[in-house]
């Protein structure tokens, strides 16, 4: 019995909690990608770098707050700086839309033209981020590090395995849930949100109904920038901020959006968790876990790790391929143009 509890605690500590946090971060990223796809109809390759840009802006404001002695008590100062980061990222997105994408929209260019243009934007954002904050790792989490410490948990429960809950993980989940609720409320209950869905569903009919495309596009960019910044800041708080890592997140984020069904917000969230849990469960070493559950003589010698951690990108990719092969529209029937 104790063994089973130990195994469960171990599993929660190394798979469940990290998977939930990572899944929430991916889901927020995938929501941004999927919204851009639904409304503007292209895969935005600059989304990872938009995340990096928004996070950088937030970090700079955080540092400024810290230098002024402003803090958020037990919570990270970055949460206080987040709205400013979002605003800066939104301004940047709108500027890029005005400078780059609006031209191609007017010409009704092919989606792939937008994708290549987004590669150009990706270069620019990447350059700007590295120019301002440099290519190195930045840690900007402050405040209380843990909600539950492994040692305290062991002492409290008497189990040999400890359960740690870092505050950044809890913050990630709480913020992600709030954001998703707010987003769905916006999309399903407000006039503008419904107009966005209508525009995404049938552009011509939306025009006939008097929906202003310019406003829809603007609101979409603002929301995408907000989602990107929030996802980026949560990821950075949980792990650390490094421009290149954010660029690499593009792959699992796209995988999440496509697996869920691109263009479908519910799918993006489901996809985020599918990808995150696949990555974590496949790269987790089950040696200790099985050690608790199996009788002593059957305990495994090796790490019992399906794949080395370095192959986590491969996991999202394989899932992506399987979904593309067997259900190209994704789990939640997105739109396939």
């Amino acid at each position: 019995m104790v063994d089973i509890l130990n195994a469960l605690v171990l599993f929660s500590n190394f798979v469940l909690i990290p998977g939930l946090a990572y899944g929430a971060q991916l889901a927020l990223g995938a929501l941004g990608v999927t919204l851009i796809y639904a409304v503007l109809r292209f895969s935005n390759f600059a989304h990872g770098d938009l995340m990096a840009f928004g996070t950088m802006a937030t970090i700079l404001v955080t540092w400024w707050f810290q230098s002024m002695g402003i803090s958020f008590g037990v919570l990270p100062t970055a949460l206080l700086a987040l709205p400013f980061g979002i605003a800066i990222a939104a301004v940047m997105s709108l500027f890029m839309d005005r400078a780059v994408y609006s031209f191609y929209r007017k010409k009704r260019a092919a989606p792939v033209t937008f994708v290549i243009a987004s590669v150009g934007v990706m270069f620019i954002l990447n350059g700007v981020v590295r120019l301002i904050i440099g290519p190195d790792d930045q840690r900007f989490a402050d405040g209380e590090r843990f909600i539950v410490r492994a040692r305290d948990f062991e002492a409290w429960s008497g189990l040999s395995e400890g359960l740690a809950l870092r505050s950044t993980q809890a913050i990630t989940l709480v913020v992600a849930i709030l954001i998703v609720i707010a987003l769905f409320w916006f999309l399903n209950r407000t006039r503008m949100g419904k107009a966005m869905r209508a525009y995404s569903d049938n552009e011509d009919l939306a025009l006939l109904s008097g929906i202003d495309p310019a406003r829809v596009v603007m609101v979409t960019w603002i929301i995408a920038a907000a989602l990107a910044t929030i996802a980026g800041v949560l990821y950075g708080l949980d792990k650390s901020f490094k421009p290149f890592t954010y660029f690499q997140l593009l792959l699992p984020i796209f995988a999440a959006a496509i697996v869920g069904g691109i263009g479908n917000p519910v799918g993006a969230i489901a996809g985020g968790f599918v990808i995150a849990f696949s990555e974590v469960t496949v790269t987790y070493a089950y040696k200790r876990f099985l050690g608790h559950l199996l009788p002593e003589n059957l305990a495994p010698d090796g790490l019992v790790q399906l794949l080395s951690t370095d192959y986590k990108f491969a996991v999202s990719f394989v899932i992506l391929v399987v979904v593309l092969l067997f259900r190209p529209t994704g789990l939640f029937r997105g739109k396939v143009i």
Partner: protein
Amino acid sequence: MSFLIGDGMTGGYGSADILHDCTIAVEKGEIAVIVGPNGAGKSTAMKAVFGMLPLRLGHVRLEGEDITALTPQARVAKGMAFVPQTQNVFTSLTVQENLEMGAYLRRDDIRGTMEQVFDLFPILGEKRRQPAGELSGGQRQQVAVGRALMTQPSVLMLDEPTAGVSPIVMDELFDRIIEVARTGIAILMVEQNARQALNIADRGYVLVQGENRYTDTGEALLANPDVRRSFLGG
């Protein structure tokens, strides 16, 4: 002076004109129907009236005001509503949301208008929470017409509203359209089912190759032996 008139319209998409000096007009509370063989430019004439086709010559006037230069969106704001032939509902939105989107430009209380639409098409009231994409073809057409009525238009333009629906549904849809016309709305519609459409039409236009061939009341056109022979199959 007609309420809405596309007067001497000439134009097309490229260098070749599709419409040649074509005139279409409709009065308040009246139903005007455009019929003709395939490729006669029926839908094109309707699109020209709605501003979706560049005109080389001719004018479109609404209540005497020249609106030739206005975009379709601006015409919506002027009280014109258009129901396209295909893709005329937001499939992923619920019936009610479709109607709300129809009233997007209105800032006043739209609940009364929505009740009127539900009175006209009771099935929509029943299915108001269902995505429009899940409805049958006839019900979708009702959503499409309902969406257009939400702007409280003075003109309702329908592009082949009965395409692909069963005869029974077609009759019912025509009945509803007559009801709409009785409320004082001008109705301009393009129809493939010429005989049934002329039956309910106050005025009919027979177009051939982008030109007016016959223009008369619906009754007179149905009685005209030439029209019967050439366009109504005897």
